[in-house]
């Protein structure tokens, strides 16, 4: 994978607008294949997380984003060409129960495919944007991904204040200083049950909130 010529400019602009203060707590940037997972409160989340990674890691890190939002026009052009986003179908409340569009198994296959042997991913395991007060329960995708790739590194990153910059339902941003805190990597233990793992991953993320 090669960085898009606009990538550096977009990353700089994202850091400027979000005023993001990046901290690695008991953790440091690592070029090994990693799934970065974060809380989700704003459309800016993945751009800010992506731009906060060192350039050489950023060039091989692809965000996983919802197809229904990102497949439109200019958005798609940016998402696919600059960020090399992995667009997956998600099940909306309306579709829940109809197995048709958002097949989770297919999404996992897409992500594995996008990772190849050395690409990293940015994932929001809550599945949808929250209000910023609580981190919702994680969807199972993170678990299935780890199950298929034993030993896969997961690095939690907690995003503060992005919901204040561009909350759900707003289209104009207001400047706040945001903060991104990365924590130590974790991996799925052999024989670890799904609920226990998802709870552990969620707690690893929530712990970074007020460090």
């Amino acid at each position, binding site marked *: 994978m090669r960085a898009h010529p606009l990538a550096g400019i977009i990353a700089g602009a994202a850091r400027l607008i979000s005023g993001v203060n990046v901290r690695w707590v008991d953790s440091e940037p690592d070029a090994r294949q990693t799934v970065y997972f974060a809380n989700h409160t704003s459309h800016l989340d993945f751009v800010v997380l992506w731009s906060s990674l060192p350039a050489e890691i950023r060039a091989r890190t692809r965000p996983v984003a919802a197809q229904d939002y990102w497949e439109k026009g200019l958005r798609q052009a940016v998402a696919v060409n600059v960020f090399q986003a992995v667009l997956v179908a998600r099940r909306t409340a309306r579709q829940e129960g109809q197995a048709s569009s958002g097949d989770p198994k297919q999404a996992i296959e897409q992500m594995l495919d996008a990772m190849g042997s050395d690409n990293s991913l940015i994932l929001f395991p809550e599945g949808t944007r929250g209000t910023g007060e609580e981190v919702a329960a994680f969807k199972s995708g993170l678990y299935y991904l780890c199950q298929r790739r034993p030993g896969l590194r997961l690095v939690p990153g907690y995003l503060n204040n992005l919901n204040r910059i561009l909350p759900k339902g*707003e289209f104009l941003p*207001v400047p706040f*200083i945001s903060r991104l805190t990365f924590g130590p990597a974790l991996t799925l233990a052999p024989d670890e049950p799904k609920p226990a793992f998802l709870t552990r991953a969620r707690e690893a993320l929530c712990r970074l909130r007020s460090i």
Partner: protein
Amino acid sequence: MKNLDSQLVWAFAGVLGLLALSSLIGVVLKAVIRKPEAQGTISNLNARIGAWWIMSAIFALTLVIGPIGSLVLFGLMSLLALREYVTLLPTRRADHRTLFWAFFIFTPLQYFLIGIQWYGMFAILIPVFAFLFVPARLAIAGDTEAFLERASTIQWGLMICVYCLSYTPALLMLQIPGYGRPAKLMLYLVLVDQLSDVMQYVWGKMLGRHKIAPVVSPNKTWEGFVGGVLSATAIGTALWWMTPFTPAVAAAVSLAITLMGFAGGLTMSAIKRDRGVKDYGTLIKGHGGILDRMDSMCFAAPIFFHIVRYFYVR
């Protein structure tokens, strides 16, 4: 170089000499003092001096560019200061669009009014129009939780970070008979105010024993306060030649600047302590955020402006 005159050049040369002297002192202190407990203070001092070089260069450059340069600089500082301020305070989801107005309508408009020299509107845009607009817009947004606190928080932020700070470049609007370019007046205010901060820090570090307000600002001491106010007033008096003042008036005006600056530092510290933080931001190495550096200016600039306007502009 139409925006330079010989007095401005002398003032710049003085600042350059001062910066060089401080850097020299910083290097000597670092080499001479070996006590491990002093190392933190010395590296912070050197970080501060480094930042002073950059800040002085930016300020001098915008001053030479002319009024547009100063307006853009202070406009950006207002935006950054307001951003630091609102980040620290508990805003709610329903404040979003009101905040958008504060950042992207009222702030640019305030500086635009200075640019077109419309003093009457400059003076009332935020205290009258924004003052009434903010609570009305919040009421339209429909969230009544802590309504008055939220409205006053935004009003206060606009007053301090935008209105008060904009009084510094507003000096460029003043037409003083027989005085030449008011850019010198702006430089004078910034010099006396910022040197007052520096001198209070220096005297406080050297002699500081008795704390003035231990709860609000643990680093402010009586020794630092008295030493800083006296030395900055002395410097302000010695610089009378770049102002429309006589030496005696320059002394009184400098005293007013330093006292207002002290009040500003103390007030803005009280907010930080209430919110449980040490600094407003991390933008300026060694100093903290824009608001940590400009807190004294926010209080000194409006008073200085109105003293000059009342007594010297007719």
